[in-house]
């Protein structure tokens, strides 16, 4: 076997924001969810603030997520009744008159933005909310749509690879969005320290079935050729927002006039769970026919069908990786976007001291 520099099981940075849950999932009943190997108990205080505590009581590590919410911001351990506040400090030890000063559980920084609850599992002094990746289409009044969550049994990086190279659509999604022009078309990749962009246009092509039906939501009797675009925006460490759409061929979409077309944003953010599993939060947002709940639901379900095809592939890929520990990954030219994503993540891991610096080219 030849040498390969491609990591098959990439670690996850910790000094970053990851989505722990949709905003509506976090409420006055504790929710258990693991992010980046850390089990969390998520809940809201009475005044609505989202809280993420380590889901293991200080005393004997019973999961606090099985406990009950008490008072303004407290949660009571379900086992021996220790009561913690939202800062993770014990405020009552039922069997004694004082409180052990060491009795705390970690309380992780939380930001609520773009319909998601984001958590920071690394150094809390670095938890700058301005580092939350841009997903503004999620709650911008100019956009409408909805999404779902997929728990995928694979390393989160495999999902990022999948989204950074859409030539797989031709093979994985042949009945909906795939078409052979995808692999044939040129693409342009650019990057900076936090972002990678892959820009691909296919001009004067037949719209695939999914896009034809979306075109007809806006232009009911549309027939003919389209210009199709896929502009993939990655933001470190694991958010990918894909500007997608089609417009009637030759009406100026590549130059910036998309008025004769339909535009969507596929919003994706992936949170590692363990090294072999992740939670994939996605939504499909659109900027036309905002009033139509039917379109919202149809698009969400349509994309859910497409993504279940990805999930099947990703789980099978992870299983094959595990079944062939002595085989490596190799590169293809189509991987360049995904390879830049890996490079940025490896740099961050090196900066956090969790990957030997020498193995990562400096930027």
């Amino acid at each position: 076997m030849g040498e390969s520099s491609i990591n098959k099981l990439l670690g996850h940075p910790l000094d970053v924001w990851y989505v722990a849950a949709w905003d509506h999932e976090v409420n006055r009943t504790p929710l258990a969810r693991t992010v980046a190997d850390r089990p969390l108990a998520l809940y809201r205080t009475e005044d609505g603030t989202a809280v993420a505590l380590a889901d293991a009581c200080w005393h004997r590590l019973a999961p606090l997520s099985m406990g009950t919410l008490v008072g303004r911001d407290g949660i009571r351990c379900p086992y021996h009744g220790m009561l913690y506040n939202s800062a993770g400090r014990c405020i009552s030890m039922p069997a004694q008159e004082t409180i052990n000063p060491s009795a705390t559980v970690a309380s992780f920084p939380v930001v609520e933005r773009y319909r998601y609850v984001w958590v920071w599992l690394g150094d809390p002094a670095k938890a700058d909310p301005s580092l939350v990746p841009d997903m503004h289409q999620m709650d911008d009044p100019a956009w409408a749509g909805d999404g779902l969550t997929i728990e995928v049994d694979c390393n989160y990086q495999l999902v990022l690879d999948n989204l950074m190279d859409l030539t797989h659509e031709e093979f994985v999604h042949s009945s909906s969005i795939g078409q052979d022009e995808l692999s044939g078309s040129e693409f342009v990749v650019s990057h900076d320290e936090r972002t990678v962009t892959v820009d691909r246009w296919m001009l004067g092509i037949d719209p695939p079935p999914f896009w034809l039906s979306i075109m007809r939501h806006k232009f009911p009797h549309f027939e003919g050729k389209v210009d199709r675009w896929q502009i993939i925006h990655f933001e470190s460490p694991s958010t990918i927002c894909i500007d997608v759409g089609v417009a009637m061929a030759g009406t100026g979409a590549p130059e910036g006039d998309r008025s004769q077309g339909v535009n969507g944003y596929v919003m994706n953010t992936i949170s590692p769970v363990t090294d072999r599993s992740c939670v994939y939060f996605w939504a499909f947002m659109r900027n036309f026919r905002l009033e139509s709940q039917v379109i919202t639901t149809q698009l969400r379900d349509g994309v859910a069908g497409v993504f279940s095809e990805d999930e099947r592939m990703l789980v099978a890929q992870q299983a094959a990786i595990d079944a062939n520990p002595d085989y490596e990954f190799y590169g293809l030219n189509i991987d360049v976007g995904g390879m830049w994503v890996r490079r940025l993540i490896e740099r961050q891991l090196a900066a956090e001291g969790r990957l030997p610096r020498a193995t990562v080219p400096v930027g």
Partner: protein
Amino acid sequence: MRPFRWADGTVATSHSIVWQQATVVDSIALTPVIRRIVLRPEKPSVAAAGSHIDVRLRFGDRTDTRSYSVVDSATDGTTLAISVLATPTSRGGAAIMHALEPGDSIEITQPILDFPLRIGAPRYVLLAGGIGITAIAGMAAVLKSVGADYTLVYLGRSRRELAYLEELTAAHGSRLEVHVGDEGTSLVVTELVAAIDESAELYLCGPIRLMDAVRRAWIERELPIANLRFETFGNSGWFAPEKFTVRVPRLGIETVVGTSQSMLEALEEAGADMMFDCRKGECGLCEVRVLELDGDIDHRDVFYSERQKNARGKICCCVSRAMSPSGSGATVTIEIS
């Protein structure tokens, strides 16, 4: 097999103890009684503000551990600094630590975080008594870096105890408030606590008299108890340690507790099968019942309430001691579980 360990370097939430060798890189006298010792651990690991290391020391044929807060550490965790105060009453560990020279090797744990700083409180008071600054200095640095609203209160009986005064003045300017006993500027704890509001968090490390005074004032003002944060290694008392006698009639044990050992250690040496966990006066597992007391108790734990301490019926024997107000040597007769 994982190609590398995921958790490396993320000390923030780890409580597992990893013993390792460390090399002494530097040892300098900051004041006549305080030395700063820089260590290079075998396994680098970043020390979050408020962490401490345990050090394993040899005393003749037995070993014992001492805890020291990490004053500061390299950003990549390759070196860390502690500071050690030697007092006439210290239990012998300080003498060993002060004698360390560059190149020497000692056994330490990785940084352990039992005293975490929470980011995000609207206001902070950091209160350091003497060598307690070692736990607090790193917190002040973090609060400064995140632009928090904080006051750093640093006090000692004399300037000899304020080893980090110069650099803290440079770093924190008007946010630093200094009280020096022999200069007549002692801290009035009730005034400090009276000025604190509901939302402020107070982080405290210092001698037990200071801690008890702050705790009492805090409870009297009915401030949220969880906002008072402190760390104690159970090594300071209201009184200087004295030799005293401990008796366990049921086991036929009578032994003398020397000034450099704890009652728990003395009982273990005398063959009693003792229960314990923290060995620093927090958990209450080492509790013994007092049957008879000739002298008084110097309660050094934070497990009992003031009411329980005044009752003199139970002792956390890992830290607390008997003492005789007359100086003639106390005797405590106990029952153990």
